[in-house]
């Protein structure tokens, strides 16, 4: 076996495969950096080129891409506060505050080193696990999966911030939004308001970008400054690497978490980062800086989201069952080059397996290296006045959302989620808790339902893994509750004072209205279709009523009461416009797009926005508008992606690209 390992390495680095590996890495970084695209889209782009390639070259290219998306997406998450792909949502929590503080270089460097380390650990685990993992994966039945998902939910404890009640409210709201659409057990359409777009549920991209990116864009606009408060991006490149070395325990543990969760088909890569983040916070002694720019928050997440690919390849290769969206296409690619994934391939074509593993390890290191090279320039974006960046960010975010189903509903969903995100942020409700609830909803419901059908309680009690996982959850809850970090994960920290309380009361009343609507909507459903949302409502309603009572009691010492807006108006200067002001601008942009289509809409919006908000002259405005139009024309032409159409295009048939 060792000789196979050695020869595959030599073959890989001495043949043209290395060039293809490099190509895969570069494409992976690009799709990682662009919020519109992630690993799944990147793999799909690659597939046509794979056909007809020599198998080793194809393997190297596909693995190269797979490996580094989670390295590239870090750049956007840390520098812009926008998730570059679903895998690095949690990176934002500490990475973006670091960038704002002028420590972008340190955060990026720590992230890259952690990514490379996590990726290599993932490759090592894959090497060791590939021949023995089958019984382990089969030992995880739906019952065990359910407990793992619940372990994910238990992380809400450490992500709640100052008020656990509000964390739970946010999580339950996430569960409720997640429950929109076809019920897993009965296929009944829940809470779709007569709109079939919602039959598939609210897309993850709209939720992630809406809840994280839009509020951040608006907030930065209102400050009217650059992202970074410092005048340079800092010289922390070396410091970041040292940070990783100091916290090598975090790197090892979160890499292990990434591998395990990646290896279990069905949990999904978008949860790994949150579990890793929660774990990092739980096990840290000093929790006071998390959410404000603790480097461990970045390291933990980045190690896990690269190692997850090594884990995800285990079931892909030995069962032919992908562990993530991008490995699903990887699987398709293997079939296209004539390989049949499964135990037979792993055992008989060891060279194929080790080519993949070596490519994974090398790509992770190459990816981190490339990122180091380009980051210096990229990071300068944080020094640019934000009015110049904002229109690009808005255009990309809306375009990204539109790609999830190519329906106008995607744009509306993004706006709706953006509004929820803005107000969650304003009133100090944990957005991570909301997202965790949303992401895990489907898994909880499906696994709960399937576990009840597949097993009796007696069956479950006889499975030792169930007890082990149960113990892990109890321990996680114990530590989470005992040493709960009290710092605000949302908005600015500081004393929690608010003199005008009615906006918070209205927020809670609206949430209560959503609960009432949900109960009303599912009232006639079959038990299996309605039991989950009703349980969530039964849990959420008392929390909301409790919150309302606290607000009405006007006890300002209670951490439930929090409104960052009134704080800003009272104390903080530098905000030049209200929240509603920029919400209207964004609505105006979407309205324009609705009338005249995306490309014309974006051009008009750029001209208007820059003319009103920025000091740029007409020449500059024309240049910036031209650049964005050219960018979207190129991306839609070369990637064969549609641009949102407007009313104009429905009435008249116009030529591409405006048609």
């Amino acid at each position: 076996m060792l000789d196979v390992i050695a020869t595959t390495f030599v073959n890989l680095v001495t043949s043209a495969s290395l060039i293809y590996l490099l190509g895969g890495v570069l494409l992976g970084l690009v799709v990682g950096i662009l919020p519109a695209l992630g690993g799944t889209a990147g793999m799909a782009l690659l597939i046509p080129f794979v056909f007809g390639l020599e198998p080793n070259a194809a393997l190297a290219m596909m693995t190269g891409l797979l490996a580094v998306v989670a390295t590239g997406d870090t750049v956007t998450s840390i520098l812009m506060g926008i998730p570059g792909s679903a895998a690095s949502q949690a990176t934002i929590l500490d990475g973006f505050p670091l960038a704002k503080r002028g420590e972008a270089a340190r955060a990026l460097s720590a992230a890259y080193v952690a990514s490379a380390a996590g990726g290599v650990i993932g490759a090592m685990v894959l090497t060791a696990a590939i021949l023995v993992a089958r019984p382990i994966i089969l030992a995880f039945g739906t019952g065990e999966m359910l407990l793992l998902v619940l372990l994910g939910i238990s992380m809400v404890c450490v992500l709640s911030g100052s008020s656990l009640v509000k964390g739970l409210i946010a999580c339950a709201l996430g569960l409720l939004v997640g429950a929109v659409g076809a019920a897993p057990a009965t296929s009944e359409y829940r809470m779709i308001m007569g709109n079939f777009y919602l039959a598939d549920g609210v897309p993850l991209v709209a939720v992630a970008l809406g809840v994280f990116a839009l509020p951040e864009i608006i907030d930065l606009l209102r400050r009217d400054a650059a992202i970074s408060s410092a005048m340079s991006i800092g010289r922390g490149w070396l410091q970041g690497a040292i940070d990783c070395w100091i916290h090598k325990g975090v790197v090892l543990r979160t890499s292990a978490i990434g591998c395990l969760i990646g290896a279990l088909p069905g949990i999904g890569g978008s949860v790994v980062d949150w579990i890793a983040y929660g774990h990092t916070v739980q096990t840290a002694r000093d929790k006071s800086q998390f959410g404000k720019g603790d480097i461990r928050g970045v390291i933990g997440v980045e190690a896990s989201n690269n190692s997850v690919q090594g884990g995800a390849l285990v079931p892909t290769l030995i069962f032919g069952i992908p562990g993530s969206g991008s490995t699903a296409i990887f699987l398709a690619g293997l079939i296209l080059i004539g390989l049949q994934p499964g135990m037979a391939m792993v055992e008989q074509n060891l060279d194929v397996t080790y080519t993949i593993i070596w490519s994974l390890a090398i790509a992770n290191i190459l990816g981190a290296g490339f990122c180091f090279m380009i980051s210096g320039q990229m990071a300068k974006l944080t020094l640019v006045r934000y009015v110049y960046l904002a229109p690009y960010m808005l255009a990309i975010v809306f375009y990204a959302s539109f790609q999830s189903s190519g329906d106008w509903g995607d744009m509306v969903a993004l706006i709706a989620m953006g509004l929820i995100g803005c107000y969650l942020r304003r009133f100090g409700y944990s957005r991570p808790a909301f997202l965790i609830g949303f992401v895990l909803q489907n898994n909880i419901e499906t696994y709960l339902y399937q576990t009840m059908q597949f097993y009796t309680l007696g069956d479950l009690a006889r499975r030792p893994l169930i007890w082990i996982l149960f113990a892990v959850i109890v321990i996680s809850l114990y530590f989470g509750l005992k040493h709960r970090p009290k710092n605000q994960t949302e908005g600015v920290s500081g004393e929690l004072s608010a003199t005008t309380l009615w906006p918070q009361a209205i927020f809670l009343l609206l949430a209560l209205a959503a609960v009432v609507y949900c109960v009303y909507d599912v009232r006639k459903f079959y038990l299996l279709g309605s039991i989950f949302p009703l349980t969530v409502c039964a849990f959420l309603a008392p929390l909301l009523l409790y919150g309302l009572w606290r607000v009405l009691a006007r006890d300002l010492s209670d951490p439930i009461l929090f409104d960052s807006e009134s704080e800003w108006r009272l104390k903080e200067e530098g905000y030049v416009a209200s929240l509603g002001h920029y919400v209207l601008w964004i609505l105006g942009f979407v309205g324009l797009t609705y009338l005249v289509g995306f490309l014309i809409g974006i051009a008009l919006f750029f001209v208007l926005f820059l003319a009103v908000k920025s000091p740029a002259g007409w020449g500059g405005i024309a240049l910036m508008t031209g650049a964005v139009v050219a960018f979207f024309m190129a991306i839609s032409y070369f990637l064969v992606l549609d641009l949102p159409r407007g009313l104009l295009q429905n009435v008249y048939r116009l030529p591409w690209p405006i048609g």
Partner: protein
Amino acid sequence: MRRIWLVALATLLGSVMFRAAPAAAQAVDFKGKRIEFIIPFAAGGGSDVWARFFQPYLEKYLPGNPTVLVKNQPGGTGIAGTNQFHLRAQPDGLTVLGTTGSVQLPYLLDDPRVKYEYKEWTSIMVSPTGGVSYVQPALGLKSADDIEKLKGQKMKYGSQGVSSLDMVAVLAYELLGLDVQVVFGLKGRADGRLAFERGEVGIDYQTTSAYVKNVEPLVKAGKAVPLFAWGVLDEKGDVIRDPTFPNLPSYVEVYEKMHGKKPAGVEWEAYKSFFTAGFAAQKIIVLPKGTPANIVAVWREAIGRVVRDPEFIARSKNELGDYKQAVGPDAATLTNVAINVDPTSKAWIKNWLVTKYNYKPDAD
């Protein structure tokens, strides 16, 4: 820098004009064109792999060797992308759609989300597929010969949803008289196999290529017992043994063994029509409504040459199973059989889904 932008812009504008040029009326030539092969499902799924398998051969045989791009438009279990195609696609031969059983089924069940109409399209190729049902060895069977041992035994079966293709299998099991409890919420067929390997379900089926790759090793290791293959339709429309699995009985054979008589009656007719839409004519390449005859002819000719390509034939046995890809008039005939279900069968299926499995065709 500005110069680069200008050049890029000029190039793009150039390609725009090119793209906007109308399809030539006389000799159809796709030289330099881009053809979008729309798959209303995510990349990596069965339909996607199928389309990507055809893609290079289409490029090779379409006149002018155009670039063929597989374009994924997922959402609404295939309905959303198919609706888009129906409403938007231009009849210039530059856009084709690959449909599948799970797009056919909601159409047949009059799902209110369906805005497409198969009868307005031109079918140019039909890919049949098969499937094999298999059970846990613990149920006491050695082979399909012992199928009567299943009588009275309770088995679980994992399905992707009430109106999904998996329900064809449920109907098949029910007509056989098997006692099957359906568990919903699977994310794909592969999930069913994983549940089977974990011992959570007693019976499962996989389509041909997945069965060959992933279940046959289990059978060899004594961890699964194959029961029967669905079978394929002969020229008279009768179900015969699947050529990919000559040693496995067809569904009709096991039915006769179970019941001692040939299948008949309204429920059999209903099963057969949904089986046809789901398997015998599972994947169809169609051109949009209003496509002129000369473009249709060019596509038919190209597809005909694809399926006669020796390399294609050699590879397709492995990738698509040992099935005859229906082209030319056969394609149209098979598609007609698949999308024209007689009203009695349709009513019977709907009633069966509603009363037994809580199917709600109309969301309120």
